């Protein structure tokens, strides 16, 4: 272990961390948006949309992110649609994450007993009020562990971005090893940086999980 080498690599790793976080977070937000609206659509049994979502979920949950990125980045330009590497990464994460998020949130929504929405309706609440004030908060509470698992999964999935020339943490390490062969230093920094990125997320996750518990009924 050469401390000078470590020090000289840190700026590169910082850059990679920023890129990983940026694409990761935007991807997760996209995934969250898709997940929430998708799960709601399935919950409300919207006719055509439900079928389409079913196909979407099966397609994206049963193919690896690597393959999806390959398709978006290398095949779409051949069909005349050019997307920058960064957008492609965000889109890829968003799409695969969306499929997972829909399933997680759907299970949360369906876990809330029908009695509750019926009671709320009989008290004179509108459909809208029932969904946003009764069902959704409890569903969140139930699906939070799953959502956090998805978030961490998505952040780690950024490690396949090297395929599309995005200098994420993994690729930066591989690249430096290829150029200067300082394997131990590079891999050490790689582990450290992934921990720096993921441990706070994981801790934040458990705090949020506690916070949303208030909504749970009959606890």
């Amino acid at each position: 272990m050469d401390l000078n080498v470590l020090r000289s690599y840190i700026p590169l790793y910082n850059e990679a961390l920023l890129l990983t976080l940026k694409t990761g977070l935007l991807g997760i937000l996209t995934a969250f948006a898709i997940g929430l609206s998708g799960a709601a659509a399935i919950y409300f049994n919207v006719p055509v949309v439900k079928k389409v979502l079913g196909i979407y979920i099966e397609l994206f949950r049963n193919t690896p992110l690597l393959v999806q990125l390959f398709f978006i980045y290398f095949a779409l330009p051949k069909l005349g649609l050019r997307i920058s590497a960064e957008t492609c990464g965000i889109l890829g994460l968003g799409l695969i994450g969306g499929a997972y998020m829909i399933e997680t949130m759907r299970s949360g929504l369906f876990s809330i007993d029908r009695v509750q929405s019926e009671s709320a309706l009989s008290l004179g609440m509108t459909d809208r009020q029932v969904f946003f004030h009764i069902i959704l908060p409890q569903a969140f509470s139930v699906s939070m562990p799953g959502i956090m698992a998805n978030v961490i999964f998505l952040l780690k999935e950024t490690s396949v971005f090297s395929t599309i020339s995005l200098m994420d943490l993994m690729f930066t390490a591989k690249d430096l090893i290829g150029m200067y062969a300082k394997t131990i230093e590079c891999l050490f920094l790689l582990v450290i940086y992934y921990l720096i990125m993921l441990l706070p997320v994981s801790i934040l996750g458990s705090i949020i999980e506690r916070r949303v518990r208030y909504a749970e009924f009959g606890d």
Partner: protein
Amino acid sequence: MKKNLLTKLGTILVSTTIIGASLAGCGSAKADNAETAISEEDTATADAAKEQEAGDAEEAQESAEEAGDGEEAQDTDAVYRTLDEIKESGTINIGVFSDKSPFGYVDENGEYAGYDVYFAEKIGEDLGVDINYVSTEAANRIEYLQTGKVDIILANFTVTEERAQEVDFALPYMNVALGVVSPSDNVVESLDSVGADDQIIVISGTTAETYLEKNYPDIKLQKYDAYAEAKTAFENGNGVAWANDNTEVIAFSLENEGFTVGIPSLGDADTIAPAVTKGNESLLTWLNDEIETIGEDNFFHQDYEATLLDTYGADYENTLVVEGGKVQ
């Protein structure tokens, strides 16, 4: 809440311990490597010496550790296999490219073929062993040798000073320089004319990447980790040019219409040579002898005619081929 945080803290603690432990392990492995030159002479006399110098506290401790760690210690001590060990096992592991036509690639029958592979076949034949081809990427060639996953790298490996510190190169068998290919309607003829927003495609771990990082730090590079991906990206029009070994870019422009090699030669003239794990003297000596011997029969010219002629034509034969390890 408290319990949960405790778990997290525990995780942090455990992971730091693991990292620390692995670092300690790696650190001593590195030190071992650095001392290979000395320790190799030592090894012969090591056993005797150790018995005699049992008083030496450090060494005693070391051997105690070795006894304790058993296999692990053995692995880090000799990652490579000597010539005799390879012959005894009956198989040699050779790292080649699987996607770099016409040097190392997998042909339509699923067999490895190309200029490097033709040479690899000869090595196997003359050693009297079977060959187990291991597909490598540019960036992991050094790693494969250092971890003993392959005995020889024959993957268009350009000899550079930095690499020579990590692996041992045998005599060269090919000449190479860098080259830059670009679309014919917008040919890049000088790297100084590359705009601030333009990107040049390179493959991670190649000499082209190192050269551009060093000499043109302002040029934005778009890096890929495999030949196939870089090629597809370049064909798709990502990046204004592709910098790589000139052999590769010339082959690309000859095979694909609409692309011109604007800069046929860049940087220093280099050579390509087989590489073995640092310190593997017996295999290195054998390889050097082999290259000299088969050079007498003009083996590499035959190799060129069998594998490269279709791509480059006869014009490049004498510029590319290095016979008998002697660069002219």
